[in-house]
Each structure stands twice: as C-alpha cells, then as structure tokens.
C-alpha cells in the first residue's frame, strides 16, 4: 500500500473542502475521513505518512483518534498534525502530550500548511 499519502480527518464540509483544495493545488490527492472513528480505520487500512487531524469531531475526537492510531500502529512512521480552531495553551499542551507532531491553527495559513506538509512528506509531491 502507498505510504506516501495524506489523510484528512475533518467533519466540517467547508474546512474539508478548503484543505482538500489547498493540497490539490500543490499536487497532493488526500484521503478523507469524516470523524475520528473513520479516521482510525482509514489510517489502519492506508497507512498514510501524514494525518491532518481536526480535534472537535463527532463519534471520536481528534486527540482520542490520534492516541488510538499510535496504539494500533506503533511501528508505522505516521505523523499526526492537529488542525484546530482551539489555540489555547491548554490545547497545545494536550496535543504535545498526545504525541501530535505539530499544530496548525485555523484559519489555515496556506504557506504554513504547505511547509508542514513538505516537512513531513518530503519536498516532492506525488504526481
């Protein structure tokens, strides 16, 4: 299975659309999950290299989903970056503690998103 894909876990359709569009503009074709539970299942199936994880979601929140992915796939090099409109210190600490590799605040800044993606995926996007 491809190890070089991006998984977006996001319940809000607008946010999802924007993330997808931004990534497509830079040559990535991301996988999509609509809640934390689905996100964990998709991660297990597709073993993405990078997960862009919303935090506040139905069924399973992003922090729980991130912990679950790390628990189920302990040996996989999967980077999980939080994408959230909650930017309090407490939220940052919680993400640090849950093993997130980074945090992108909403509204998403396109250059920040792309540099984060490049950092985790390597500079060359898939064709």
């Amino acid at each position, binding site marked *: 299975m491809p190890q070089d894909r991006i998984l977006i876990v996001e319940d*809000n359709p*607008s*946010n999802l659309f*924007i*993330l997808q*569009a*931004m990534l497509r*503009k830079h040559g990535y074709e991301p996988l999509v999950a609509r809640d934390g539970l689905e996100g964990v299942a998709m991660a297990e199936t597709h073993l993405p290299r990078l997960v862009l994880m919303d935090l*506040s979601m139905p069924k399973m929140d992003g922090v729980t989903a991130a912990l679950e992915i790390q628990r189920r796939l302990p040996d996989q090099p999967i980077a999980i970056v939080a994408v959230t*409109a*909650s*930017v*309090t*210190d*407490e939220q*940052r*600490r919680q*993400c*640090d503690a849950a093993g*997130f*590799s*980074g*945090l*992108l*605040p*909403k*509204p*998403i*800044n*396109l250059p*920040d998103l792309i*540099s*984060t993606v490049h950092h985790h995926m390597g500079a060359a996007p898939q064709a």
Partner: protein
Amino acid sequence: MPSVATVGRARASDWANSGERIFSRRLAASHFASITLLIAVVVASILWVSARHNALAEESYERMVRGGLSALETRMAAVVRDYSIWEEAYQAIRDADYPWVYSSIGIAAASDEIGTVDLVVLTDPFRDTEYGWVRGSPERGEAGLLPSPLRETLLALLDGTDPAAAEARTTFARFDGGVWIFAVTRVLPPGGLPEGLTDAEAPRQIHGVRLAGEVLSGLGSHLISSDLRLLDAPRPDLGAAALKNAAGAAIGYVAWARPRPGDRILRQMALPLGAALLIAAIIAAISSRFAVSSAARLEQALADARAADRSKTEFLSNVSHELRTPMNGILGVGQLLELTELDAEQRHLLDVLLASANTQMSLISDLLDLTQIETGNRRLDSAPFEPAAVIREVADLIRPAATGKGLTLEVDVDRGAARPVLGDRRAFKQILTNLIGNAVKFTDSGGIAIGAATRLDATAAHIELKVTDTGRGIDPADQARIFERFAQVDGSQTREISGTGLGLAISKSLAEMMGGDIGLDSAPGAGSTFTVAVSLPVAAQDAAPPLSDRVSA
C-alpha cells in the same frame, strides 16, 4: 449559548464545594493558638509569682531561725562570761565552801536571765571532782552528770583560748534524749590564775539549756507564724536549719512548716482571675468567630469570582473557536482564489477582503491572548530556544511590510543572544512581533532598528531588546497609557492607524510574566525606542528543543 453558561455554573459550585478555605482555617487556628497562648502566659505568670513568693518567705524564715539560734548562742556565752572573773567563786571552789557555791552558783544559775539554765556543771580541779545541778538540785551537787565524751568535748572547747581572760565558748550537742546548747568558761580570780598554777588547774563552768519549750519557740520570735519543732532528720515537707555539734556534724534540725504566702495569693486570685480570663477568652472567641466567618465569606466570594472568571475564560475560548471556524472558510477561500487567474479589479477586491479578514483574525487572537493572560490561564513554557533566531525570524516575517512602505529594517544582535535559553519561545516571539509590527505601522519614513544586547552570568542570560523607529514619536502624557488595554494615542473614531490597541498590553504582561518589563523612550517627532529587558535561565548547550517548539504558531 445556554450550554456554556450551565457548564460555567456547575464548575463554579464544584469549586466552591471543594472547600479551598485555607485562609479562614488558618485564621481560626491562629486565633485559637493566640487565645490559648495568652491564657497559658497569664496562668504561668501567676504560678511563677506565687512560687517566687513562697521561696522568698521560705528564705526569710530560714534567716530568722538561724538568727535566733546565733542570738541564743551569743546570750549563753555572755551569761557564762559574766561568771568568769569572780574572786569569791574561785576561792569558794578552792576552799570547798559548798553552801556558798550552791547559793551563789548552783541555785542562782537555775533562774538565770536566759529563762532557765537547765544544767550547771562546775569542775573542782583542786579535788579532781565536780558539782553538777539540774535546775538547782541536788543541793550539794553531784559528779558525772555529763557522760564522759561529752564532758571532755565541752571542756576542750576552751583549748587554745587565753587562760587568763574571760573566754566563753558554745556548742550544740545531744544529751539526755534531746538537743542542748552548752556554754563553757573558766572560773578565775581577777588577774588570772595565781603564780605556779597551770590552765588545767583552773575550775571550769558549763551551762546547758535544753532546746525545747519556750527556748525553741523563742528562736523564731513572733515573726514566724509556724511552730518550731526539733527533728532528727530533715523532712521534705518542712523547712529546717541544721544544729551542729563541736565537730561540725548535724545532730538535729530546727524545723518549721513551710510558709506558703504564694498559695494564698493564688487562692485569692483564682476566682477573679479565672473569671477575667474566661470573659477575655469568650470575647476573643466571639471576635475570632466573626473574623473567621468574614474571612470564609471573603474566600467564598473570591472562589465565586474565580469560578466566574473561569467560566468567562471558557466562554471566551469557545467564542474564539466559533469565530475562527468561519474565518477559516473566508481566509481559506481567499487564499485559494489568489491562486486562480484574476484580473486587476478582482485582485484588488480580493486584497481588501483578505486584509479585512486578517485584521479580524488578529483582533480575535489578541482578545483570546489577553483573556488568557488576565485570567492566569496563560502559563509560560520553559523550553530551550535561541533568542537571536527568533529575532531574525520575526524581522524576516515583517520585512516585506517595511520594504513595502519604503522603510529600512536593520537587525543587530550580539553573540550572547545566540546562546540557547530556557523560556517561552512563543511569548518572546509575540512581544517582538507586536513591537516591530507597531514600529512599521507608526513609521512613515526612515527605518526600524532592532538590537539585542546580552549579558551572561553563571546561570542566566539578561537580554535587552531595543526596537527603535524614526516614527512620529509619543507624547510624554500618553506614554504610560499606551500599555493599557484598548489604548491608542489617537483615540478618535477617525484615527488613521488601525489596530486593536491590545498588542502593547499583551506584550507588557508577557514581559512581566518573564520577570522583566518593557520601557519606552520617546518624544513627539523624534521617534520611539521600546526596550524589553528579560532574564532567562541559560539552557544546556546540547538541549534538544521539545515538541512544542516545533508546533507552528
């Protein structure tokens, strides 16, 4: 948002119920301790005064009894000395004139000025015998009234005294089942013994008085309220003065019931003092209760206020989240639009839209930051970072805006600033962003200079950041005010410079949280220099930055 308000209330009551009433509990404990201490001190002082009174009375009793004993010895010695140089007595003994000796010495001594001389012994060296009377009888006297060792001891008291003078000696001794005081002297003709006689050939006279009855009770005189009694050994419950024989050994004790004037004071004071202490304690307890309940109410109010503050913070962070989510749509679409083919008009419209949205975003961020600082929810990290790197990063970020206005932006950072320190990188960056951003915003020509001077000591890096601009400057009257919230020098509705007025308040709070401060040196028309002084612990050179440092902000 009813759900938020409900959550806030539930939190507030939980917090109040958890009973963080540390201060009122401490206050109650300290009041209890001081009341107890006060009572203990008063009671201890009274006990001490009473004990001191007892001890002083005891001392004065002993002094009086010892005085009485020594007065008795002095009187006994004086009486026998009066009989010492006595021509007739010497001749009568020499001539064995019994009737004279009896009438002048034997019977006379029995009714002496001491009261009663219980025993008189007169030695007759001429016939190697003696006369002895007990209270004047028998009429002719008898020998051997004093047992031999005692008799020899008493006579030996005169050894070493002047054989021609009226010398007298006294001592206490046990005799006839009691303690006696004895006085001894020689009987001499005036001028001493005739030529050719030795001291052993001088008659001697011994007076003995039994320490009993009036003699004993007279020792303490009327000053002692206790009856004096004679003891063979001291008793712990009685005060006593030792009586010593010629060899210096205690042969008995004059004892008295210990005086307890302090106890009397105690008994007399107990009731009024106890009542006074009780009243004082009750008053203290009532006022303490009042103080403690006031303190508890204050603490409750404080707890409520904190809980309200927390729910306010929670509400604001929820609001912030809700505001950011649609902004994501606006800014996201805006950024995507920028990547499409646009004509000049469309691009201009999009620029306006993005600028407005960005302003809106900084307002939301500033409000959330300030709220977190003011409610104490902004806690500073302690992670390694390089101040110089952060300064260059912020300068690079803002340089396009400066260049766009035709301004220069110079960075002059000393080597010390490259030394990793422990602190909150994000807060440091925020202060710099605010100050440099303001400098660009309020300067129309010239430029901005950013400087860092670092002094390193054993444990800390003392960093002084200077952001100097050639802008319009700030009037002295406004200089203190600009660090307040929502303050801008031009407060009018029509002011030309946009901004929330929160940046400096946030920066100042953050600098203070780092144990530093922000200073301002400015004059209208002469530009401004903002100086940030912070002291941060020096990080170990090889310390790896933690995860939070890699989180993009």
